[in-house]
């Protein structure tokens, strides 16, 4: 059996990292569903393996108890398929929705219940996934009545967040390039001059200073105490 090459291992890790980032964003960013609320209820939940997919106990309550009652909202999509939301505080934790009004939201949801004969369509903003195998539910954030099942909702919040993330990545790159140009490259020049003078093996050192890590190390070395004249 041939061992996978280091290049392929790195490529695979990169792909996995990108997939992980996409999954986290898909889980955390707000999404809008147009649905008809059919019922609201609460059920005792004992989070187990699926613990990370449940949010915090209501803000102010004891955060250490293992089980608690959670509000749920049952709804039907325009295509007839059902969807169940949980309704929990996120509090000051992750994801940062700062939602504390769980009970009020449940009251709104109960008020907007309707039947198939006389439907009241609402837009439910939520994050999270529904998964039958893990028993996890998307967390409803807000409910807004809409005129009909075909309303188009523009996801401004997601657009804003993704744009902000893109900006941050762009700035990190700019900062890194500036840092390299102003700090690391001059340091390498200094280091290789010293090496030229002291050591005849300058070529080998330059070879080593080519990698990114070596550039960084060379920059670190510039902070070392210089020999006094």
């Amino acid at each position, binding site marked *: 059996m041939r061992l996978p090459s280091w290049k392929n291992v790195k490529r695979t890790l990169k792909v996995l990292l990108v997939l992980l980032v996409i999954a986290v964003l898909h889980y955390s960013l707000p999404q809008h569903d147009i649905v008809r609320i059919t019922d609201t209820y609460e059920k005792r939940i004992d989070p187990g393996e699926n613990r990370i997919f449940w949010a915090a106990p209501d803000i102010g309550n004891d955060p250490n108890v293992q089980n608690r009652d959670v509000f749920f909202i049952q709804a039907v999509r325009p295509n007839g398929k059902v969807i169940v939301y949980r309704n929990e505080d996120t509090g*000051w934790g992750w994801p940062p929705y700062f939602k504390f009004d769980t009970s009020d939201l449940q009251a709104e949801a109960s008020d907007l219940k309707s039947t198939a004969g006389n439907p009241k369509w609402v837009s439910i903003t939520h994050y999270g996934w529904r998964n039958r195998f893990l028993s996890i539910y998307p967390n409803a954030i807000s409910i807004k009545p809409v005129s009909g099942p075909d309303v188009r909702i523009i996801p401004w919040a997601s657009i804003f967040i993704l744009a902000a993330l893109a900006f941050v990545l762009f700035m990190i790159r700019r900062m890194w390039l*500036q840092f390299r140009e102003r700090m690391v490259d001059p340091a390498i020049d200094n280091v290789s001059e010293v090496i030229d003078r002291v050591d005849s093996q300058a070529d080998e050192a330059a070879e080593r200073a080519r990698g990114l890590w070596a550039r960084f190390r060379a920059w670190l070395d510039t902070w070392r105490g210089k020999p006094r004249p």
Partner: protein
Amino acid sequence: MFALVRLAVIGFVFLTIVYFIVRIYMRSLEAERLEKLWEEEGRPGTMDDFVDRGLADYERSLRRKLIWLVYVVPTLLVAVLIYVVNFM
């Protein structure tokens, strides 16, 4: 209460790191700009003196003080988000 303290502490530490990185970056941009300006103005005096004086001015400038927005903007954003999510 614990969750709020945790958010405040982690947020403060994170934003402090961001603050210092942005500060170093902005100062580096300013130094580069001053070095080019020194060339354009026909190399008056030594470059180090010119850049040092320019950076001293920069340290007192509004642009330098605006870096404090690194703390202000996220705090305001959280306050607005709390209002929008819970009270609108």
